[in-house]
C-alpha cells in the first residue's frame, strides 16, 4: 500500500522492541466481542492511483460544471475567476499540511497570513477588527446572534426577510435549543427591502437586527437609519455579506454603523465546491472583541525583540474555558482564508474596484436585456451583481427546463422558499465577470421560448 512505509520486516523488528508477539497483542484492551478478525466484508480492497482516478473522474463527469454552461446562479455562492497563482500557493505543502499554529516559532507563515487576512477583512467590511475565519457565512451569522445576546444580555433577534433563507434555517435550528427568540419573515417581491418594518420592530428586548447586504433578492439598501434605530434601543446591528466582491463598489456595512459584520468569503479565491469548504467572515468594533468567537491572531515580539505573531485572546476559547467558552469552535477555515487573502492581495484595491465594476456593469446590462423578454419583469432597481426577475410562470420548472437546454439559469425562489406562492415566480440571477454577453443572449432567447 503506497501510503504505508513500514515493511513486514520493520513491523517484526518493532514488535520485538515492544515485546509483543503480534499486532493483536496491541489491541488487547478491545473486548473480544468487538474485535474484527479481518477486513470488513463487502467493501473493496485497496486500489491503484489510476483505478481511483478513473472512478472519481467518472463520478465528476456526471455533473454539469458551471464552466460548461451559461451560468447564472448566486444566492449565497458566486462563480468568479480565480487567478492561477491562488491555487498554486495554497498547495504549497508548508501551508497545506501545517496545522493550527500552536507553536508560533515554526508557524509564522500561517500566523502572518492570518494577521494580514484579519486586516484585509476588517478594511473590506469597514470594521475595527476581524477574526481568522469561521466555518462559513451561515454559521458565522448564528455566532453573531449569540454574541449579540452576550453583549446586550437580551434574547430576541430580529432577522430581516432579506436574509438568506438557509441562514435563517440555521439560526432557527440553534435557537430551538438555546431558547433565543427569533423574529423572522420572507421577502416581498418589491424593490424596497423591509427596513422600516425592522425599525418599528425593535424594542427593549431586542438584542440585534440582522440584515443581509446585498440581500437575497440582490437589493442594496443604506442601513444607516437602521443602525441609528438599533443603537437608540441599545440593540446591535448585524450585517451579513454573502458577496464580498460587492464591497469593491458599494459602501461597507461598517461605515453605515453596523456593529458586527459577518459574511461568506467564498466568492474570492475559494470557488463553488458544491457548498463547501467555504470561509466565514467575522468582524466587529474594537470594544466588542472579547466577546468575539473564533481564532484570533495578534502581533507581538519574540525574545530578541523581533516582530512576530501568535494566537491570542484564547481565554475566550473552548480549550481554556471549556463550557464557559464564547463558542465551541476549534478550527477555523484557514486554507480557504489563505485563498481569499491571496486573491485580495493580487487584486489590491484597484483590482477589486475594477472587478466590482465589471460585475455591476455586466449585471446591469443583463437585467435590461432579460427584462425585454415577454413575461419577464425586473423586480430590483438597485443592485450590485445579482437581481430578481418576476416571470409570468412558476420559476422552478422554468429553471429545470432551461437546465435541459444546457443553461444554468439562476436560483428560483421556489427552491429557496418552497410553498410560498407569492414568491414562486421569482428568479434570482447573478452575473459576474465570468458571464459573457453570449451567455446572456442564450439565456434571453431560451427564456423567450420557455415563457411563450
Amino acid at each position, binding site marked *: 500500500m503506497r501510503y504505508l512505509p513500514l515493511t513486514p520486516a520493520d513491523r517484526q523488528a518493532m514488535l520485538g522492541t515492544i515485546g509483543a508477539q503480534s499486532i493483536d497483542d*496491541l489491541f488487547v484492551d478491545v473486548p473480544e466481542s468487538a474485535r474484527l478478525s479481518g*477486513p470488513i466484508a463487502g467493501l473493496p480492497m485497496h486500489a491503484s492511483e489510476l483505478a481511483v482516478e478513473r472512478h472519481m473522474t467518472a463520478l465528476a463527469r456526471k455533473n454539469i460544471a458551471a464552466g460548461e454552461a451559461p451560468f447564472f446562479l448566486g444566492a449565497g455562492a458566486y462563480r468568479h475567476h480565480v487567478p492561477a497563482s491562488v491555487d498554486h500557493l495554497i498547495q504549497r505543502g508548508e501551508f*497545506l499540511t501545517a496545522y493550527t499554529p500552536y507553536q508560533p516559532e515554526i508557524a509564522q507563515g500561517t500566523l502572518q497570513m492570518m494577521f494580514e487576512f484579519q486586516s484585509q477583512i476588517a478594511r473590506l467590511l469597514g470594521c475595527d477588527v476581524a477574526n481568522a475565519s469561521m466555518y462559513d457565512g451561515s454559521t458565522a451569522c448564528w455566532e453573531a446572534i449569540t454574541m449579540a445576546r452576550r453583549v446586550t444580555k437580551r434574547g430576541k433577534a430580529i432577522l430581516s426577510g432579506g436574509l438568506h433563507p438557509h441562514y435563517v434555517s440555521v439560526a432557527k435550528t440553534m435557537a430551538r435549543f438555546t431558547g433565543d427568540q427569533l423574529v423572522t419573515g420572507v421577502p416581498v417581491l418589491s424593490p424596497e427591502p423591509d427596513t422600516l418594518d425592522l425599525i418599528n420592530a425593535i424594542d427593549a428586548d431586542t438584542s440585534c437586527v440582522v440584515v443581509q447586504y446585498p440581500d437575497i433578492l440582490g437589493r442594496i439598501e443604506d442601513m444607516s437609519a437602521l443602525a441609528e434605530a438599533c443603537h437608540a434601543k441599545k440593540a446591535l446591528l448585524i450585517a451579513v455579506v454573502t458577496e464580498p466582491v460587492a464591497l469593491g463598489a458599494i459602501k461597507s456595512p461598517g461605515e453605515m454603523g453596523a456593529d458586527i459584520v459577518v459574511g461568506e468569503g467564498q466568492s474570492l479565491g475559494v470557488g463553488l465546491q458544491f457548498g463547501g469548504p467555504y470561509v466565514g467572515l467575522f468582524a466587529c468594533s474594537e470594544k466588542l472583541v472579547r466577546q468575539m468567537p473564533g481564532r484570533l491572531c495578534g502581533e507581538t515580539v519574540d525574545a530578541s525583540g523581533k516582530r512576530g505573531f501568535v494566537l491570542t485572546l484564547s481565554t475566550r476559547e473552548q480549550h481554556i474555558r471549556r463550557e464557559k467558552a464564547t463558542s465551541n469552535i476549534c*478550527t477555523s477555515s484557514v486554507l480557504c482564508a489563505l485563498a481569499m487573502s491571496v486573491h485580495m492581495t493580487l487584486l489590491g484595491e484597484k483590482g477589486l474596484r475594477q472587478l466590482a465594476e465589471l460585475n455591476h456593469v455586466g449585471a446591469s446590462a443583463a437585467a435590461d436585456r432579460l427584462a425585454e423578454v415577454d413575461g419577464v419583469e425586473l423586480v430590483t432597481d438597485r443592485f450590485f451583481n445579482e437581481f430578481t426577475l418576476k416571470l409570468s410562470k412558476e420559476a422552478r420548472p422554468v429553471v429545470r427546463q432551461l437546465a435541459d437546454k444546457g443553461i444554468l439559469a439562476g436560483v428560483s425562489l421556489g427552491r429557496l422558499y418552497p410553498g410560498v406562492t407569492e414568491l414562486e415566480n421569482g428568479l434570482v440571477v447573478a452575473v459576474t465577470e465570468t458571464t459573457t454577453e453570449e451567455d446572456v443572449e442564450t439565456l434571453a432567447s431560451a427564456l423567450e421560448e420557455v415563457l411563450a
Partner: protein
Amino acid sequence: MSTINQSGWRPTTPQAGESDAATFTGNRALMLEEALIFEIGSADTTGVDFGEAPAGKSRLAGMEREKPIGLPGLSEPETVRHYTRLSRQNYAIDLGLFPLGSCTMKHNPRLNERMARLPGFADIHPLQPVDTVQGALEAIDQLAHWLITLTGMQAVAMSPKAGAHGELCGVLAIRAALDAKGETARRIMLVPESAHGTNPATAAFAGFAVEDIPATPEGRVDVAALKARLGPDIAGVMITNPNTCGLFEPDLKDISDAVHAAGGYVYCDGANFNAIVGRVRPGDLGVDAMHINLHKTFSTPHGGGGPGSGPVVLSAALAPYAPLPFVEKTDEGYRIVEEENAGEHHAGTFGRMTAFHGQMGMFSRALTYILSHGADGLRQVAEDSVLNANYVLRSMEDVLDAPFAKTGPCMHEAIFSDKGLPEGFSTIDIAKGLIDEGYHPMTVYFPLVVHGAMLVEPTETESKAALDEFIGAFRSVASRAKQGEAALKSAPHFAPRRRLDETLAARKPVLTYKDPVPAEAAE
C-alpha cells in the same frame, strides 16, 4: 502612487544593538524575513488584468463606496514570492514527522488534491438543479456508505463542517430525541475530565449543563463514578475512545448499556478513530453518535487550521433526528432531502446546521483516500499507527515518565509526563528543544489529567527510519532537560523566531495592521 505603508518601515531592518543581527537584511541565507503586504503593497498596484469595463448604467444610486478601502495590491511575481517566503516559515507534514497528539498529522496524498479539483466537483453550485449534480450526490452517498459500514452504525449526517460542528450535531440529535420523548428534565451531560475542551463547550452550546466524570489512576473513565451519577436528569455521556490518554476504553460497551438503561445516550468523540478503523466498529460498543474528523483519519489536509469536515454517524435511536439536508438514493436517482420534503419520512429532523451540503471538497478527498486504501489498507492504517505509537512509547519510557505504560499497550498515541524533570524545567522546554532538532513538538499540557502532558501521535505514514531519528532527537532533548541544561530554557535558537511574548499579545491586542501616521501629520 498611494503607498499604504507611508513609513517605509521593514521588520527585517536590523535593530540597533541586536546581537545576532549580523546581516543587513536580517535574513539568514535560506531563512528569509518577509514584510507585511501592507508594508510592501500599494492601493494602485494589481496582479490581475481586467479589460476596460464597458460603459453602462449604474444601479448603485448613491451607495457607491467613495472612501478608500485601504487594500494593498501586489503584482503576480511579488504575490507568489510573498506567500512562498511566508510558507517557508512554517513547519508541515511535508517537511517532517509531526507528532501532534490527537491531531493525526498523517501524509496528505496528492491524488486527493487532484480529484477534488475536477471541475465536476470543484465547479458546481450547491443550488444547481438536482439532475445536474447526480455525480456529486453519488460521491456523497458512496462516502456515507463507507463511513456507516466502517463504524457499524445506522446513518450518517454529512453536513457538519468540522469536528466540533459534528459534536454539536450529535449532541443536538440527543437533545431532539429527548425533546421528542418529552424528557425535558434530562439536561445534564456527563463529560470525563480528560475530554477535549470542545466537548463541554459543545454541550453548553446545545443547552446542557456539564458535569465532570473523574479518571482512574490508569487513565480511563471511572466507570463506577459514572454509573453512580446516572439518573433521570442525565441526558447522556460524551466519551472519547480511544481516549485522550491514548488508551482504549475497555468498558465502553458496559458504560453504554448502563447509560441506555438509565434513559440516556452515548456520544463518542471520534477524534481518535484512526487507531481502530477497520479493527473495531463503534456501533458494536453501543455508541449512539460519533463524529469522524475527515481531516484526521481520512487525510484531508489540515491547512494551517481548517477547513475540517465532521460527518456524524448515528445509531437507529438517533437517526430520525439527523440534520438537513441529506442525500437519498431513489429509483429515479439521487435526491436531496431538505425542508420541503423532509416531512415525508424525516419529520423528526432537528433542522439545518449550515447553509449547504457540507464540505464537498473534503468529501471528494476522503473518498479518494478511502478507495485508495480499501478495507484491507484501512485496517493496516490502524495497525501501523498503533504499532508506531507503541514503538515510541517503549523507546522512550526509560528516559521520560510514561504514566500508563505499565498497564499495557497504548493505541495510536503515547503519553508522557514532566515527572522527574529538575526544578525549573517543564514540558515546554522539551517541546521547544524539539523545534531546534527540526521537529514539530507533540501536543503539550493536554490532557489535563496528566501533569505536564506530552502526547505523541506519530501516525502510520512514518517509516521506521523516520521514527528512529525522531526517537533519537526526543531522547536527546529529554536527557538534556533532565540534566538541567540551561540552553533548553531559551530554545528554540534556530527557528525563524525565538519564544514569543504571548502575554503582551493578550494584554495589548494588536489584531489588525494600522497605517503609520505620516511624520508631517504627527507634528
